[in-house]
């Protein structure tokens, strides 16, 4: 039964790399996990949409307080980190271990850079008196508070994912250096890469919703 439901090529993966490693299964497992992550964020996107529908004008005005420059730079940082992530996998598959390590290190560095920029951004906003429950927000209509509650919740949870991603990629980096992830057995790096790209995708949607309401 399970033999039939497996994709044709999955039966042959045993020939490559680790004798008992099911490459398809590992990737599919990662995708399944990513779908649950997507559901987690979708709930928040739905809430954001509903609030935005009920408080259109306030959301519009509140979004002017977010810093578009921070958002745009961070988008580019994250997109570039996705590029170096993909390049790292290609480099490893071509057998260039140290090039792969360099690309992966750049990915981690860009991820940390993203968090540093995020920190600067949040600091600026908190300094301006914008944080959940702040007196400044209470002086505005209710929609303002909701907008920034969603803003801190969603970018915060996303930032947490970036942090976890950096940790995960650091473990992968150590595995490559120690020779536990190799040209023949690179599926763990690929799975970690999938996670990193999902974080990028979530940011792609957060960016226009919080920074680009003109």
């Amino acid at each position, binding site marked *: 039964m399970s033999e039939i439901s497996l994709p044709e090529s999955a039966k042959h993966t045993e020939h490559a790399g680790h004798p008992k490693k099911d490459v398809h299964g590992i990737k599919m497992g990662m995708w399944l996990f990513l779908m649950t992550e997507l559901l987690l964020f979708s709930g928040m996107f739905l809430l954001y949409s509903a609030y935005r529908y009920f408080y259109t004008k306030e959301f519009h005005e509140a979004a002017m307080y977010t810093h578009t420059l921070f958002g745009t730079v961070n988008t580019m940082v994250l997109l570039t980190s996705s590029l170096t992530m993909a390049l790292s996998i290609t480099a490893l598959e071509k057998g260039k271990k140290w090039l792969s390590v360099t690309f992966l290190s750049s990915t981690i560095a860009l991820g940390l850079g993203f968090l540093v920029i995020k920190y600067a951004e949040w600091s600026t906003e908190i300094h301006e008196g914008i944080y959940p429950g702040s007196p400044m927000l209470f002086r505005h209509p209710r929609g303002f508070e909701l907008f920034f509650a969603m803003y801190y919740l969603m970018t915060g949870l996303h930032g947490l994912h970036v942090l976890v991603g950096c940790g995960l990629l650091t473990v992968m980096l150590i595995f490559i250096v120690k020779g536990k992830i190799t040209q023949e057995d690179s599926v763990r790096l690929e799975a970690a890469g999938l996670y990193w790209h999902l974080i990028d995708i979530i940011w792609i*949607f957060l960016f226009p919703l919080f920074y680009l309401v003109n």
Partner: protein
Amino acid sequence: MEQQTLTEHKGAPTSYGIYVLIWLALMALTAITAVVAGINLAAFTLVIALLIALVKSSLVVNVFMHVKYEDKIFKIFVAIAGGVLSVIFLLTFADVYFRR
């Protein structure tokens, strides 16, 4: 046959060039999003921004996340998940809209 499926699965590594090309496209789309937001298109601003976000994410899913080069089962899997998500969004939007 066995040899063929094996190479199909492992495949040749995706070239650096394709990734760089996709990255350039993503950067260009980000720039376009930022510029379009500056022009006042009223209600269309958000629609355009979200459409561009959809294009960007499909580039990431297909190329960076390798779905384009994977077996059919991955494509079906991603498509079903995307379909379910859009149903959830559509029904919730309908609920919010007609509740008012």
